[in-house]
């Protein structure tokens, strides 16, 4: 086998669900050499105070991000589409269950 290089492992991003039913939120990163170890390391680092119910780990290099210099062209066009937001609509008082 070829010589193994000494490293601190790969970088993984950690997403935690703090309560069943809630969305997973990015909590931070962790180092590990493989996925089984990554999820254990994430558990030991980020849920020391019982913060977790569910957890994902994702190799950091698998995450696709936009460049911040692009952010205006990327996000601003949807700023004027207020009709996507429920508060846009004027509805009669007393309407229920909508």
């Amino acid at each position: 086998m070829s010589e193994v290089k000494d490293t601190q492992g790969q970088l993984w991003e950690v997403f935690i669900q703090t309560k069943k039913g809630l969305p997973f939120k990015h909590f931070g990163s962790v180092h590990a050499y493989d996925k089984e170890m990554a999820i254990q390391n994430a558990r030991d680092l980020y849920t020391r105070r019982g913060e977790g119910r569910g957890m994902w780990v994702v190799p950091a290099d698998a995450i696709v991000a936009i460049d911040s210099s692009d952010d205006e062209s990327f996000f601003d066009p949807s700023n004027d589409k207020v009709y996507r937001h429920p508060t846009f609509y004027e509805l009669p008082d007393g309407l229920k269950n909508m």
Partner: protein
Amino acid sequence: MDNLNLSKFCIRLGDHCLIMAHRQSELCSNGPFLEEDIAQINLGLDLLGQAEALLIYAAKLEGGTRTADDLAFRRPERQFHNFMLTEQPNTDFAFVIVRQYIMSLYLLKTYQALSKVEDDTLSGIALKALKELTYHERHFAMWLKRLGDGTEESHERTQTAINELWMFVGELYEEDEIDFMAQKASYAPTGIEMKTFLMEHITAKFSEATLETPHSIYMTTGSKKGIHTEYLGYLLTEMQYLQRAYPDAKW
């Protein structure tokens, strides 16, 4: 089981946890990388919590003349009943993983039985510990595979740790009067049950990790009578220093 014998039973179990927690806490700031440092401390904290709960209960069963701290910090070597395996030093990371993997299996089986007893305090301690130990076994087994099937060096070191620690495994399924009493009350598995459980899991996991299970080695014995390896004396000297040096002080 009467209170005094149940107390002795709890002290034994508490001693295993306490001494292992000590060894685990020695790893603090000495891990191979920071994430593993944190993991080892977590496991140490779990064991310390179990030790504390068991010794508090043992002190109560005894009649309350001693506290859990008295039990931990004022007993001499010959009154400690932890398995010799638990006091073996952290020679290298492989020794830690092998020692703790085997002890995780022992504690799993032990807490499984205890979680079903009618004594609410004990079943409560055991149920909580059972969750913790399930994770311990998983963590140590994960490392066992990586060390056994990693590099040539890691394989060799791990096999050495197994070979050198193996003589201490026999104690884990040895029995004396207290064990028989505990078994009769369904507080503990029998020696045969424990041995079968340990050997099945160990041989399977070792072979998955390309490691050899030693055969026909002389098994040492004695901790049930307070006999230990020389390592325990140094460990207690360190652990009990403040309580011994300032017997009147409260901390």
